């Protein structure tokens, strides 16, 4: 025991720790830089870049670190690169860590929900802004445990530098064992030293997790929660359950919601139709065709929407409603046909060539096409208010004050000013969708696309969202294209209904006429089925 303590405090071994840390730092730092480059190459649109990165990964992940160390140390000098031993070891470790770190980064990025990306794109974020503001903040949080793992493994792997004469902890231990024959005391001591180092890494990891914990602001947790035998998730879950449930019921809908605007009378409708008919065209879709492999999704579809008009897209699942909406703001490419928004071909240059993703994003922001998704797609790491204010700052260049003022205004309008500081996951589905609508409205879009905005909601939450949309249509006169299964709602809010089947419009016309007196048998059958299913839950 005294021998063990003696070696534990032996300066010779403690100095080895310094070298071990140097090699580890070089390996992790270099590995992170290389890994970022590799991950970027692998996620690139250009196949050559990703092929090179893939080849690198196969080679450096597939060969033992010990060989890479020897290579960096003994082979590189033959081509004139004679690195000091510590640098050579750091280089080999960095080259070896890079593919692992790259895969972690890639997994983190790909793990971010596709909906988050769609929402960012629809708001006009360029790929760089999207990465910095939406993907990276979410990915980094999920990657911290993996980074902790990788750091511990790099620390231990640095011991292989002993084969190339780097005087780190392991090499010093073996030399000391050879000269003193105190084999076990020395290795227990150096084992404990490694354990202290890796333990420190674990503490840093836990601290970072705590620091980036989104719920931390809500509730200051005691440090004891981070002891391994304490379940962290449990108390939070209990607290959340207790908090959100009663809130929901007590949630005040906007004051005027309760005295909801009654459906327009026949005369008002006619008057509205006449006004709209004189308006300019907002969206024009001509002969749009799109294939997914052998399957035709859009089959020569034509649609014209005038300013101030509300068009409801109806039809069975898979009829092309969502795809049509996603083509209008160019979230998806298509095979032939044209889409014009405000007279502009969104996403194409004057000569008809496709713009880069970055330029499409800028144009989307300039033309002003807002989108509301079935799954809300709120940025899950941002509060309700930031969800609205953030894109205003990042895409439209508003100052913090202006963006915050606009966000507060819009949250007030959808009746959620009291939930401004809440994270999306702490909001009910209906509340989330109302925030999503506020977010889409913030930059004053010329057209708002709503993709089944109530389909993912529990029946009792549908009304609050429909009411917000109804007011946008009737009070604000916003141009909207809504895909929906809510027949009653479509009847009350839409000026026109378009029925899609098999990727084309089979019937369209004034909402009330089409819905009450369909001429196409397919439409009639769909309506009767929907009516039968939805009747009990229909709007009011």
């Amino acid at each position: 025991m005294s021998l063990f303590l003696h070696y534990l405090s032996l300066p010779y071994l403690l100095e080895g720790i310094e070298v071990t840390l140097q090699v580890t730092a070089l390996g992790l730092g270099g590995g992170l830089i290389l890994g970022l480059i590799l991950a970027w190459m692998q996620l690139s649109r250009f196949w050559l870049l990703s092929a090179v990165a893939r080849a690198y990964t196969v080679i450096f992940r597939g060969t033992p670190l010990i060989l890479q160390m020897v290579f960096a140390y003994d082979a590189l000098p033959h081509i004139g690169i004679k690195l000091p031993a510590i640098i050579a070891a750091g280089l080999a470790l960095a080259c070896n860590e890079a593919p692992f770190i790259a895969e972690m980064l890639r997994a983190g990025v790909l793990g971010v929900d596709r909906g988050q990306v769609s929402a960012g794109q629809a708001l006009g974020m360029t790929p760089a802004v999207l990465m910095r503001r939406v993907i990276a903040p979410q990915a980094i949080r999920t990657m911290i445990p993996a980074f902790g793992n990788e750091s511990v493994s790099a620390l231990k792997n640095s011991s292989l530098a002993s084969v190339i004469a780097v005087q780190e902890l392991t090499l010093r231990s073996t030399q000391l064992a050879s000269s003193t024959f105190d084999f076990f005391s020395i290795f227990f001591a150096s084992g404990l030293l490694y354990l202290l180092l890796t333990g420190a890494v674990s503490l840093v990891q836990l601290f970072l997790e705590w620091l980036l914990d989104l719920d931390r602001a809500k509730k200051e947790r005691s440090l004891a929660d981070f002891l391994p035998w304490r379940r962290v998730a449990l108390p939070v879950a209990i607290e959340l359950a207790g908090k959100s449930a009663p809130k929901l019921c007590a949630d005040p809908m906007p004051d005027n919601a309760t005295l909801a605007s009654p459906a327009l009378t026949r005369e008002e409708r006619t008057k509205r139709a006449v006004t709209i008919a004189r308006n300019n065209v907002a969206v024009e879709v001509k002969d749009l065709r799109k294939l997914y492999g052998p399957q035709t999704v859009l089959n020569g579809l034509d649609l014209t929407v005038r300013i101030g008009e509300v068009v409801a897209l109806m039809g069975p699942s898979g009829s092309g409603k969502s795809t049509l909406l996603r083509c209008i703001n160019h979230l998806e490419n298509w095979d032939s046909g044209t889409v014009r928004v405000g007279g502009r071909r969104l996403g194409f240059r004057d000569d008809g060539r496709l713009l880069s993703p970055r330029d499409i994003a800028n144009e989307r922001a300039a033309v002003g096409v807002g989108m509301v998704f079935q799954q809300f797609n709120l940025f899950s790491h941002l509060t309700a208010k930031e969800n609205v204010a953030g894109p205003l700052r990042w895409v439209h260049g508003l100052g913090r004050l202006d963006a915050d003022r606009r966000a507060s205004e819009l949250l007030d309008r959808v009746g959620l000013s009291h939930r401004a500081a809440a994270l999306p996951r702490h909001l009910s589905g209906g509340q989330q969708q109302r925030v999503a609508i506020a977010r889409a409205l913030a930059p004053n879009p010329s057209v708002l696309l709503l993709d089944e905005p109530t389909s993912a909601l529990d029946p009792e939450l549908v009304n609050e969202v429909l009411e917000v949309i109804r007011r946008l249509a009737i009070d604000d006169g916003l141009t909207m294209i809504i895909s929906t299964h809510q027949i009653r709602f479509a009847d009350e809010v839409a000026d026109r209904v378009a029925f899609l089947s098999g990727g084309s419009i089979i019937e369209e016309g004034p909402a009330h006429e089409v819905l009450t007196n369909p001429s196409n048998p397919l439409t009639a059958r769909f309506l009767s089925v929907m009516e039968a299913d939805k009747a009990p839950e229909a709007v009011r």
Partner: protein
Amino acid sequence: MHKGLLGETRRASPPWRSAVLGAVVAAGFLAPLSAQAAPAGCAELQEKYPDWKGKTLVNAINPHTPGYEAIDPKDPSKYVGFDIDLGEEIGECLGFKLTYKAVTFAALLTTLASGQADIVISDIYATEERAKAGDFITYSKVFDGVLVAKGNPKKITGINTSMCGAAAAENTGFVEVPLVQALIPQCKAEGKPEPTLQLYDNNANCIQAILAGRADTYVNDVNTVDNAVKAYPDKLEKAIAVTIPYSVGIAVPKNKPKFRDAVMAAMMEIYKSGDQLALLKKWGLDPANLKEPGLLTVN
């Protein structure tokens, strides 16, 4: 720990227990010897070979052989042993200083060949095979000891058919490896099981293999074997000492014949002056190891 990291306690000498195997090392320190003064002919050599005067060269060693090269248990920041002293004296003779690079035994010559070291003085046996990777200046005869567990349970009597069926621990790259492998056909011819080889990275691991009952024998330089027996007198013993047909050599790069000649000339001075014999005595090594320096080179 912080102090250690900052290097402030570097010189603080902890209470060191009276060494177990330090016997050899201690004997070395006690023996008064003035090996430091360079032999008379050295001044002449420095004129003849001025290229390395004032330089600092790198000596690659495998510091796992107490008596030849190992870290000093009293001050682990230093290497001590016969080879270390010999290298220092060659350096003094030719006017250069040495720093040390600790590598595995198998990496000694690759380190030299890649230019990461200038010279290898590490109890390495000069063989024709190895001479393809570096030129050798031979300086010592080789006597091997056969290390076995106390009582020699397998009745091993040397590198012969008494090793059939035994497990031999060896360092990767040691010349004893092919010697043991050469026994395989002999054992087969006698209808006995083959000897098996366990390859380790350093001396300590080979000795541990016997202590742990994994290996039956470890054949290495006789002084190394004697040191192991001194460290574990209740558990180990030397079965026998054998001569093997090699010399110990200093390896230098093949593409530097002038350096080889300079080292050779310096070795000759050290040999003739009697300093080499004095060093053997200082480190408690058998004076019978003494040998006139020679060259081993192959193309």
